[in-house]
């Protein structure tokens, strides 16, 4: 039984990290109806920019490499880059495409994926880098001693961070003026426009926030597996979470992430051996697919997806 819980807890914690990436998709889809495939590339761009600044900053400023100051300066600079990238994307790529069919916008974001990947590597080079956030990825000892279950310190830290992020985003949407405007835009663009909400302003903010989320996701995933091109694949982990949780729901992303994370790990351990293993690649998609057959709008999705 201990093994079951170990797998389950590990899966839930991984699920939070999937949710973190999914969150970026949700934000943009909710506000502008764009399925932003470039989110994975943005995660990569953010992480690479962060470690890139971490490398060059000591040379520029004379600060000691690896010091707290360098970390935060790199963080701020990376965040600024992400905000600029988000706003530029909105202005240059998406604004000219307003009112185009969804699929065209979707393809534009795939084009954006190539663009962002290319720019990131052209600036910082394409070699693999490590990223140390100062939290060891090792089991919490007292849990290991008392229950013989492995729960990683790093995963708990990451999950907490993701939780705080989601909570603050939820509060931001609920209680600030910008947040309310954003929800209005999400509900109905034209109605929002007609009562004087500056649509393009809001979109720029959303893209900037999505950039921030991408940076946090990039730092955590980058610390887990190194800052390298494969960070773009985190998007593929987030997609089933999106279908399951609904494209428009922030809590859906979290709950969907938990379900996907736990079930894919349990499936790999308990079903995998019978079919030769390696099923983690497709299992979440199948699960989400089956779920959709029962509830076509996802867990928390809005009902207006018309059925046939």
């Amino acid at each position, binding site marked *: 039984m201990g*093994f079951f819980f*170990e*797998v389950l807890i*590990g*899966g839930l914690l*991984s699920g939070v990290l999937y949710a973190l990436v999914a969150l970026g998709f949700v934000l943009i889809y909710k506000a502008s109806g764009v399925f932003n495939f470039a989110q994975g590339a943005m995660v990569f761009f953010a992480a690479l920019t962060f470690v890139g600044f971490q490398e060059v900053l000591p040379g520029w400023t004379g600060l000691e490499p690896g010091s707290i100051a360098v970390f935060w300066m790199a963080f701020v600079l990376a965040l600024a880059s992400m905000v600029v990238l988000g706003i530029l994307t909105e202005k240059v790529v998406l604004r000219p495409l307003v009112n185009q069919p969804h699929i065209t916008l979707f393809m534009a974001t795939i084009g954006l994926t190539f663009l962002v*990947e*290319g720019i990131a*590597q052209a600036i910082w*080079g*394409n*070699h*693999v*880098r*490590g*990223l*140390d956030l100062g939290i*060891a*990825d*090792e*089991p919490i000892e007292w849990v*290991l001693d008392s229950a013989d279950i*492995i729960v*990683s310190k*790093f*995963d708990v830290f990451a999950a907490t961070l993701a939780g705080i992020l989601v909570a603050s985003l939820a509060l931001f949407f609920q209680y600030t003026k910008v947040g309310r405007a954003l929800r209005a835009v999400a509900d109905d663009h034209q109605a929002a426009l007609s009562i004087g909400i500056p649509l393009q302003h809001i979109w720029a903010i959303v893209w900037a926030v999505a950039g921030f989320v991408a940076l946090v996701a990039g730092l955590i*995933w980058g610390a*887990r*597996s*190194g*800052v*390298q*091109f*494969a960070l773009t*694949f*985190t998007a593929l*982990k987030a997609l089933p979470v999106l279908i399951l949780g609904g494209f428009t729901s922030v809590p859906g992303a979290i709950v969907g992430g938990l379900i996907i994370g736990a079930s*894919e*790990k*349990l499936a*790999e*351990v308990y079903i*995998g051996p019978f079919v*030769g*293993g*390696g*099923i*983690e*690649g*497709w299992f979440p998609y199948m699960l989400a697919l089956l779920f959709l057959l029962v509830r076509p709008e996802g867990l928390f999705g809005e009902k207006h997806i018309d059925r046939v």
Partner: protein
Amino acid sequence: MKLKQTALIGATIAGLLATGYAAAQEQFIGLPSYRVGPFGSNGASLYGGWIDYMAMVNARDGGVNGVKLTWEECETEYNNARGVECYERLKNKGPTGNSVFQPLSTGITYSVLEKVAQDKIPLVTIGYGRTDAADGRVFPWVFPMITTYWSQASAIVNYIGQKSGGMDKLKGKKIGLLYHDSAYGKESHAIIDKLAEKHGFEVQKIAVANPGNEQQAQWLQIRQSKPDYVILWGWGVMNATALRTAAKTGYSRDKIIGVWWSGSEEDTIPAGDAAKGYVAAGFNVAGANYPVIKDIQSQVYAKNAGNMEDKNRIGSVLYNRGVVHGIITVEAIRTAQEKYGKGKPMTGEQIRWGFENLNLDSQRLAALGATGFMPDLKISCEDHEGGGKVKFQQWDGTQWKVVSDWVEADRPLVRGMIEESAAAYAKEKGITPRDCSKES
């Protein structure tokens, strides 16, 4: 006007595609490199080392007996279709066409496997590609040199045997095989099963789905079943993640033995401290302290002409592997020139002969400044592998340290499997194997 312009641009591009560089006393080498995409980091080091070596030969010796080496890169993005296009684009360039094709991708290798025989261009796959092509009677144009996946698996098992105090100690041991769930990873199954049967150990095969950035489930299984050793058969991000997750689940890193595509700085640096103690196989070693690398530093980089953007990676495992590719290519050209005329550019057919008669014994390696850098190598008509030895290195947290001598594979067993598989291929394709006693 617009039409005219477009036509003009079109014609220019078509012209560029059609004409090669024509100049005498040059040996053209087409490089199907990949510098973007998920493996771009690896490709940059590999092709960087290779190009630097050729540049060094040009600068130090004025080429091979006066024949300058020229090359051109073609970006494949590790994609089979792009690889085929590069193959076709590069094949007729230079005065004698492309000398050799080395795509550093098993997928592209398979895609051009049959074309090379028609076009008479040797296909060299060092440490990847089709294993049974080591039977030169069936695959005259393919050279999976130094060592193949099967030899490597066998050498790893031998190394584990050595560490356990003898091959007979393997009986009853449990070895985990954590593999990339793809054609590449599955290549290990047949040989490991055979070895398990022979030595009486138990194998636990655990698949990791591509790309392998999540391995919690796999390592918890390993924690549960507690194998004595884990062989890591990964590529790309899967390696770093495996080491991180092993640390997380408390599996000792010095019990993890990686294959050579899992044992580079690109795999250990992103894993951070978790990689300390990890052991990996390699048919070349890391380090810049070899005469050949020093020559590259003094002949190429001292003149600001090197290929690497990040000079810290000179002497890394993959960079040195690129240098090995360079050494083998240049030596094959040299061998061919000795038979067909020194100071002349060689054709693909002549270079094929050069590969087949390549003999890098310890003397030659010493002359090349590569003693201990790569194993000695002797290719013959029958055996296109010619060695099968690997060294093991351990990551000490900052660099790779050699921890073994050259470890041999179980040659009779591997060779038997290679011949069996090659014979099956020959039968399927209706190929009559060459009679090697008639080759000169």
